[in-house]
């Protein structure tokens, strides 16, 4: 199942559907980096609102996406982690350390706009 990646100005938005397989996650990781290169995006927002469980593979993939995209000079923000999912994640020690997070898409965009305003 392919994850749709939308372009919003200088940003890319990838919206997770529920229940992504490991193969889907790997495919997404490659696709996102390729798109960042192609569009010279400044940031990627990954929206995981629809995920009701987050296992260690998904969590690791999200971190890897952020690191790879940072190597291209772009920022990643993970948005929409549900309260129950967040709780379960920290109990498993999956803290997404070093990756920016925000409550939802609106907050994620606000964060990025603020950040780039300060830099520019």
């Amino acid at each position, binding site marked *: 199942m392919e994850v749709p990646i939308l372009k919003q100005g200088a940003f890319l938005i990838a919206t997770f559907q529920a229940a992504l397989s490991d193969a889907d996650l790997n495919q997404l990781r490659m696709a996102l980096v390729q798109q960042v290169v192609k569009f010279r995006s400044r940031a990627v927002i990954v929206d995981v609102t629809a995920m009701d469980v987050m296992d260690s593979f998904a969590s690791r993939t999200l971190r890897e996406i952020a690191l790879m995209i940072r190597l291209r000079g772009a920022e990643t923000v*993970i948005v929409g*982690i*549900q*309260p129950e999912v*967040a*709780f379960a994640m*920290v109990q498993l020690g999956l803290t997404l350390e070093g990756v920016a997070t925000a*409550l939802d898409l609106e907050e994620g965009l606000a964060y990025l706009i603020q950040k780039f305003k300060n830099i520019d």
Partner: protein
Amino acid sequence: MSKRESTSKDSGARSNPGVGLVRSEASSELLRELVAHLRQNRTQLREEWVVRISETRLLTAMTKEEIFAEATSVYDSYVEALETEAFEALQAYARNLSERIIPRGVETHEVVGIVLLLRDVLARSLFAKYQTDFKKLNRILDAYEPAANRIANTVAVGFVQERERVIRQQQEAIRELSTPVLQVRERLLILPIIGVIDPQRARQLTEQLLRGIRTNRAKVVVIDITGVAAMDVTVANHLVQTVEASRLLGATVIVTGLSPEIAQTLVTIGVDLGKMNTVGDLQGGIEQAERLLGYKVVTLAEPR
């Protein structure tokens, strides 16, 4: 004489295997006779029972009319349980009765007491009726006693279960009330914690806070633990997890009011203090939160 085994009609038999409910035909016959006697003399026996209840000063929380009304339905349920051996129905009745009388302040010993009084009143009337036929009296009692004991047991257990249910319900309500998540500014929540935190309360706290962050779209949370004297390693870890989970929802947590003991615990468990934003007291915490959110507090030139 053919022996017909009849087992109890309901699953109550399975839950109480110690009481043999295998009855011979003769025994069932006796039980029917016994039940008929109790029904015929209902008015008189019930009256006797109510008198004994007030003599022993039970159910003082209830009025005479209430006692009479409840006595009537308990008597009928008692006799029906003897007849049908449907103890599940009796247990449901007991819980229902308990739901009504527990708020009135009726205690367990009172409920057990009145059921045992009824047992005695009915037994005495059997002695009176069969006093000339000792052998028959024995057989009647053989039929009566196990069932009567089962009834007393069932009612008592039903009552206690209902009390336990009420206690659990109240505990849950207290837990919820004792961890309020308060919004004091746009995007700023305060969670004042007072008292003892056990792992269960800590978990409930975290869930309530995360829900509050999402509902109020909070960007900063100040967790004040001035009112918490001590926490063990498990709870300290819960606190760290709460901070981390809040971050995943895009909120920054500031912890204020750490006592020296708690500070020691956190250092001992090796909390990465880089991850934990702490300020001395609540006032300082709110001021920092406001700075993070871009608020500035100024005094007006003239106080109103």
